[in-house]
């Protein structure tokens, strides 16, 4: 099914939400595993987001201009003896898309659970 441009599926909204939360905590850009961990913490899920789902969604968000990515300096990774990480940062369009997503979901949540809406 084709989606409306600018609309988000729940996983995409979770990724942007997690990245913004990490930014609030001082992490300007986050790599895949950090995002997966943050999503798990925020949603209380038992499992971390699957590799395939996470990286496919990240690519989609980047292509839509809602995230931007950059690779870390290979020297840093080499010094620490680990693979190079790719970092993602939420763009202004990403923030707007999440705000719009939240605004669209709010009336639906209200109608489903009257009086129990939490922001």
């Amino acid at each position, binding site marked *: 099914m084709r989606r409306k441009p600018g609309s988000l599926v729940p996983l995409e909204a979770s990724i942007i939400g997690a990245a913004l939360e990490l930014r609030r905590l001082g992490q300007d850009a986050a790599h895949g*595993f950090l995002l997966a961990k943050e999503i798990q913490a925020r949603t209380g899920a038992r499992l971390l987001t*699957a*590799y395939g789902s996470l990286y496919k969604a990240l690519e989609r968000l980047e292509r839509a201009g809602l995230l931007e990515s950059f690779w870390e300096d290979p020297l840093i990774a080499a010094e620490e003896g680990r693979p190079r990480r790719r970092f993602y940062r939420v763009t202004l369009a990403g923030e707007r898309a999440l705000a719009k997503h939240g605004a669209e979901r709010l009336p639906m949540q209200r109608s489903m659970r009257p009086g129990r809406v939490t922001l």
Partner: protein
Amino acid sequence: MSRARRPPLAMGLVHGWVRLYTAGLPAELRDARREEVAADLWDQASDWRGVEGLGASIWARWLLGIPDDVTWRWAHSRTGHARRKEGAMALARDHRTMTIVVAAVAGAFILGLIALQVVSEIEYRRQVDFAFTPDWRPLFAVMGPVIVGAIVAGFRFMRRAPALGAILVAAGSIAVGIMFYWMSVPLLLALGLSWYAFRRARRMQAGR
């Protein structure tokens, strides 16, 4: 993860799976995905508290993500296929144009030889028989379709190869003029047609 700890079997399996589904993709895309998943696995293993459950978590993340990996691969294969197809079509177009040019030159050469043979034959007949009136119909029967074909092909090629199109139209039109050299109208018509063909080709190229 403690550096000395042996990575679980699941990690090797995920590495192998990523190598498998990214095989054959453009190097940049392939390496980016491989490196990204490798970094994720490393981070997950180093972040894990204790040894228990790490393998199960990796297995679960891998298995649940397989449908997305497959659709991701399929989407990128399709994009790559479309790009390759476009390149092959451009190559085929160039190849076809070259084939037509070579065929046109070869055809003109052969027709020239035939025409020369026919004219020599007629001259010989005239020398031996003063009452001989040449029958030009066979020559026209051969040359007519070729000339018309050249003009039509010229117009058809105009968008892709304006110069080639104009040359074919001009060659066909001038041939009409030469065959009917005793008539000035076809020659003027030929020149007019060639000029029109050239102008039309330029307009088509400019997208007007």
